[in-house]
């Protein structure tokens, strides 16, 4: 028995308090189970921030790791506030074609304009169950924002993060989310674009923002030789990278299965199976592709294979039968290896491979709905039609329009934002700061102090040189100024 709403009521006679327990109806009990599942799933998705942090830290050099921690915390926090202020309203505040229009600075009981989800929650004002939905959608926005920055590691100025985060969580992501998730024009284009949990909305959006930033940012110092050939800048910690991948994999069990937004018919458990089958196939696909193309078993590529497959299965996870998942996953695993090698040749320096794992795999995943969506699940979800293998061509075209529209919107808004940041603040640290590392240059401290500060100085064994040779006070990262003559 689920505990139902309790009320204390003042008895009309005398001064006794009488407790009246209202038995929960089956309907409220189900609603509570649904809300519980949505919140558990949202928390799993929130934990993906840790996955992104460790993945990026592992792929960075040791002099740029503290910066990742500062960035993840800052961006997640800005996104949380922006989502409350404007993001949610644009994404889910009504079913208009372009943008929602109610729910700014939402509060409990606020009235919303009718949309897809007000019907689902049986109310047009924000209640407890609907709060779960709002939080679940927010952590998606935060994941999308986190994806943007892996590509820009080790050289971007910190100032770019908060500015782009405000625009991204307040405008860019909510627009895409509204168009596909929130009842905008893509949700009703053709039979509707199918994107169950956001291969396009979340992952392609993040990767497109990353591409816009990268085009204005350029490669890391030393990434390309004078003759233009690429050289490796190995990340400093593959075990941390692996931990990041596994945390993301875990988080995806909230990401896709949580997008059922409830527990009806046990659908979320089916989605768990589909998600896991695809990820497993993605690891093996990348393993094989790495062996064939690189003649080695590249640890980073194998991890990226899991990520790419999870990204690819995100859109079709609620639309395909179990058998299609390994096919979608193994292809994504191959795509990510080819993509990383291709971007490297194109002089697009992407330290974590996000353009491939989230961009190319996101496109593949969204299109794969148009191939593998089963008639049973298309009609269950009430969005779109069955895919190519069931003899229907039109859904693939609808999916392609969805990808193209989302990419165009995000790319234009992102490149405008980054160009403005570049013009006003500059987008990239100077060469000396890049050599010294972002940790000491931008944050005044090292991620791994013992690696950069000799033990005698760190422990204070030696007397400070100021005692005998009075040097001017040292300043952060300024390593080329002359000490005054004694």
């Amino acid at each position, binding site marked *: 028995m689920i505990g139902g709403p309790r009320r204390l009521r003042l008895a009309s006679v005398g001064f006794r308090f009488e407790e009246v327990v209202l038995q929960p109806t089956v309907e409220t009990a189900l609603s509570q189970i649904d809300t519980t599942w949505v919140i558990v799933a949202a928390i799993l998705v929130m934990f993906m921030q840790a996955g992104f942090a460790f993945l990026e830290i592992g792929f960075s050099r040791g002099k740029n790791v503290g910066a990742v921690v500062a960035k993840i915390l800052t961006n997640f926090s800005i996104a949380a506030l922006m989502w409350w202020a404007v993001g949610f309203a644009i994404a889910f505040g009504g079913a208009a074609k372009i943008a929602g229009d109610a729910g700014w600075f939402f509060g409990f009981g606020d009235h919303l304009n009718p949309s897809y989800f007000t019907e689902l929650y049986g109310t047009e004002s924000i209640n407890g169950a609907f709060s779960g939905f709002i939080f679940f959608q927010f952590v998606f926005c935060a994941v999308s924002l986190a994806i943007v920055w892996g590509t820009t590691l080790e050289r971007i100025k910190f100032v770019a993060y908060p500015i782009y985060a405000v625009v991204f969580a307040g405008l860019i992501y909510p627009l895409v989310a509204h168009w596909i998730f929130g009842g905008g024009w893509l949700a009703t284009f053709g039979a509707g674009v199918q994107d169950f949990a956001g291969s396009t909305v979340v992952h392609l959006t993040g990767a497109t923002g990353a591409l816009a930033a990268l085009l204005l940012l350029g490669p890391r110092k030393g990434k390309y030789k004078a003759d233009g050939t690429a050289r490796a800048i190995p990340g400093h910690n593959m075990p941390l990278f692996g931990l990041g991948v596994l945390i993301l994999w875990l988080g995806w069990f909230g990401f896709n299965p949580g997008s059922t937004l409830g527990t009806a018919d046990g659908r979320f458990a089916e989605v768990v199976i589909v998600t896991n089958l695809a990820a497993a196939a993605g690891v093996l696909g990348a393993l094989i592709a790495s062996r064939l193309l690189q003649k080695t078993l590249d640890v980073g590529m194998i991890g990226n294979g899991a990520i790419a497959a999870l990204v690819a299965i995100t859109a079709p996870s609620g639309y395909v039968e179990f058998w299609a998942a390994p096919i979608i996953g193994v292809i994504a695993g191959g795509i990510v290896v080819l993509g990383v090698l291709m971007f490297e040749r194109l002089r697009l320096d992407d330290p974590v491979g996000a353009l491939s794992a989230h961009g190319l795999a996101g496109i593949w995943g969204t299109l794969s709905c148009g191939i593998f969506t089963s008639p049973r699940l298309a009609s269950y979800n009430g969005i779109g039609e069955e895919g190519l293998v069931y003899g229907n061509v039109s859904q693939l075209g609808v999916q392609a329009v969805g990808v193209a529209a989302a990419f165009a919107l995000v790319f234009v808004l992102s490149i405008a934002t980054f160009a403005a940041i570049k013009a006003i603040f500059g987008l990239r640290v100077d060469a000396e700061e890049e050599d010294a590392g972002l940790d000491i240059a931008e944050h005044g401290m090292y991620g791994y102090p013992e690696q950069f*500060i000799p033990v005698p100085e760190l422990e204070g064994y030696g007397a400070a040189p100021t005692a005998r040779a009075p040097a001017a*006070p*040292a*300043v952060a990262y300024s*390593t080329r*100024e*002359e000490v005054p003559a004694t």
Partner: protein
Amino acid sequence: MKLVSAYIRHEAFEPIRTDLLELGFPSLSIMEVKGSGRQKGITERYRGAEVTNYLRPKIKIECVVASSDVQTIVDTILKHARTGAVGDGKVFVMPVEEAYRVRTGESGEEVLQAHPGAAAGVAS
């Protein structure tokens, strides 16, 4: 025979290495060192407190060459290591008594480097 011992910035190493290879001087060793000179240190601020680090990381190159080649080596190092700012480093030249090649037991200047001027130059 002379030992050229140079303390340089990290980023100067690769162009020096590339030039020395082309000139026929493949044999050298490097060390990651930390040291101080007229360059300032840097201060790390950690949760409100400071720790100042006066020792800066540098690359030390050691390269033993025939006396007649010393100027070539030093010029190459000076050319690439100089930015004009404090902290560019220093170069020292020291005499060397004798040199042996471990593989064959040969001794003398011919075991040192591989440039065309070296007596028993082996390019491989």
